[in-house]
C-alpha cells in the first residue's frame, strides 16, 4: 500500500489471514490450559473419592455409569424436565417484564428516580428469605416455583438493560435528535441496538440466577428435581445425586454458552464488545 492510499485492506485479505492464524493459535493455547486444569481437578476428585469411600464421595466412574444410568431408569427424567419447564416459564416472564422496564428506567428520569431504590433493594435482599412469603400467596405448586424463578432472574436483565440504555452515549442521542427521529424510531434504530450487548449480558446472568432459583424453589417445597436431590442425598445415593447436579450445571452452561455466542456474533458485527469470556 502506498502512503497516499486511504484504502484499508478488507479483513479477508492476507493481513486478515495472518491475524486469524494468530487467533487460532491463541485459542488452542487457551483450550490446552483449560484441559490441563480440568484433568487436574478430575484427578484430585478421583483421589479424594477413593480415600473417602462411596458414602461420602462417589468415584468418577460410578457417577458416569451408575449415576447416569440411574438417572434414566429410576424415573428422574420427568421431574428433571418439569424443573426446566418451570424455569423457562419463569424466565420468559421475567424477561418480558424486565427488558421493557429496564428501557424505561434507563431512558426517563422520573421512573428512574422513583423505582431505582427498589431495584437496588432487590439486589441486596437475600431472595431465599422471601420464599416463606411467596408460599403464602402462591402456594406450593407450579405458580410458586415460577414466581421464585422470576424473583431470582429479575435483577440482572433489569439493571443491565437500564445501564445500557442510559449509556447510549449522549452523542447517539444527539444524532437521533438532529435527524428528527420520532421517539419510536430513535428506540428502534439507535437506543435498543446500542443497548443490546448490555441486555444480552443481563439475560445471561439472569439465566444463571434463574437456574439457582429453580433448584432452591424445589428444595423448599420438595417437588421436581429438588425433591429427587433431597431424597438421593438422604439415602446416600451419591452417584445419582452428582449425576443430576452435573446435568443441571451442564445444561445451564450450554444455555449461557449459546447466549455468549450471540454476544460474540454481535461484537464481530461491530457492536461494542460485550466483555471477556
Amino acid at each position, binding site marked *: 500500500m502506498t502512503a497516499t492510499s486511504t484504502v484499508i485492506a478488507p479483513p479477508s485479505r492476507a493481513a486478515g489471514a495472518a491475524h486469524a492464524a494468530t487467533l487460532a493459535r491463541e485459542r488452542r493455547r487457551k483450550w490446552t490450559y483449560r484441559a490441563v486444569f480440568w484433568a487436574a481437578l478430575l484427578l484430585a476428585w478421583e483421589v479424594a473419592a477413593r480415600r473417602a469411600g462411596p458414602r461420602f464421595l462417589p468415584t468418577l466412574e460410578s457417577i458416569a455409569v451408575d449415576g447416569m444410568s440411574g438417572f434414566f431408569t429410576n424415573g428422574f427424567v420427568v421431574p428433571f424436565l418439569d424443573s426446566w419447564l418451570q424455569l423457562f416459564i419463569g424466565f420468559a416472564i421475567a424477561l418480558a417484564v424486565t427488558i421493557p422496564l429496564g428501557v424505561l428506567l434507563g431512558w426517563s428520569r422520573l421512573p428512574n428516580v422513583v423505582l431505582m431504590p427498589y431495584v437496588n433493594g432487590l439486589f441486596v435482599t437475600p431472595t431465599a428469605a422471601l420464599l416463606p412469603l411467596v408460599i403464602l400467596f402462591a402456594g406450593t405448586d407450579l405458580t410458586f416455583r415460577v414466581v421464585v424463578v422470576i424473583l431470582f432472574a429479575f435483577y440482572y436483565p433489569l439493571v443491565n438493560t437500564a445501564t445500557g440504555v442510559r449509556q447510549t452515549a449522549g*452523542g447517539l442521542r*444527539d*444524532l437521533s435528535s*438532529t*435527524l*428528527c427521529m420520532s421517539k419510536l424510531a430513535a428506540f428502534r*434504530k439507535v437506543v435498543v441496538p446500542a443497548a443490546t450487548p448490555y441486555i444480552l449480558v443481563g439475560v445471561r446472568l439472569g439465566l444463571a440466577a434463574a437456574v439457582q432459583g429453580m433448584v432452591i424453589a424445589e428444595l423448599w417445597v420438595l417437588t421436581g428435581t429438588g425433591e429427587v436431590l433431597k431424597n438421593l442425598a438422604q439415602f446416600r445415593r451419591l452417584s445419582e445425586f452428582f449425576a443430576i447436579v452435573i446435568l443441571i450445571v451442564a445444561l445451564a452452561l450450554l444455555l449461557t454458552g449459546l447466549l455468549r455466542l450471540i454476544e460474540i456474533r454481535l461484537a464481530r458485527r461491530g457492536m461494542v464488545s460485550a466483555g471477556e469470556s
Partner: protein
Amino acid sequence: MTVSSATGGVETRGATDSRPYIDVRDVGMSFASKSDDVIIIDGLSFTVADGEFCSIVGPSGCGKSTALRIIDGLTPPTSGEVRVGARTVTGPSLDVGFVFQQYNLLPWRTVAGNVALSLESIGTPKKDRPGKAREWLDVVGLGHVADYYPSQISGGMQQRVGLARALALEPRVLLMDEPFGAVDAQTRLLMQEQLLQIWEQRACTVVFVTHDIEEALYLSDRVLVMAAKPGRMVADIEVSFPRPRAMSVRSDPGFVRMKDEIWDLLHPGHGA
C-alpha cells in the same frame, strides 16, 4: 472587547446587503455547578446571510461546539434566541444538517447504512436508499468502503461518513464542527475543494468550526473569532478573495496578513 466588524487593513463588505438567514441574538449559556453557575457563552450575537460560508475559530473550550449545538436546537440556550430562516429554533429541523466533532456513527450499521439513516429521516423510498447513499459516499470519496463497518475504517474516513450523512439530508444549512479534524492533510485539501463545490452547487448556508485558520480563510466569506471564559465574539472578519479560489491564494500576501491577524487575536499577548 466587543464585536468589531473589521480588523486592521481588512476590507469590509457591508453585512447588510443580504438578509440574515441565521440570526443568533444575544445568546447566553451557563451550566449549574456546585458553587455557582459557570458561564460558557455570554452575549453571543451574529448573523449569517443566506448562502454565506461562515467559519468560527477560537481557542479550545471557548464554546464553539456549544454555539453550534444551540443553533441546531440540540441544546436550548439559557438566554437569548436563535432564528434560522423564518423559524425561531426550539429543536432540530431536517433542513439543518449537523456534522459532529465526534462522528457519532452507528457501529452496527455499515458505512452505507449510516448514510441511509438520513435518507430514512427525509423519507427517501426504500428502494432508492442504497443508490443514494452510494452517491453521497462517492461525493466524499468513500464509495469503495460502503459495505464496511465503521470500526473497519480509519478515523478520518469515519469523519467523512459523518459528512456524507449530513449532506444526504440536502439541508439548507450545514453546521460543521471541525469536520476535517481527523482527516489527513492531503485528503483534507481534497475535502475542502469538494465542500466548496457542494456549497456552490447547492447554495446552502454553512457555519464551519475549525482550529485551522488557513482552512477558515480559504473556505469562508467571513471568519468569526471567539475568545474563552466566557465564550464571546471578538472579531468578525470579511474575507473577500474572489471565487473560485485557487490553492495558490494561500500564499497571497493579503491572505498571509489576515492569517497573522487572526493568530494574534487568538493569542493575545504573544505579539507577532
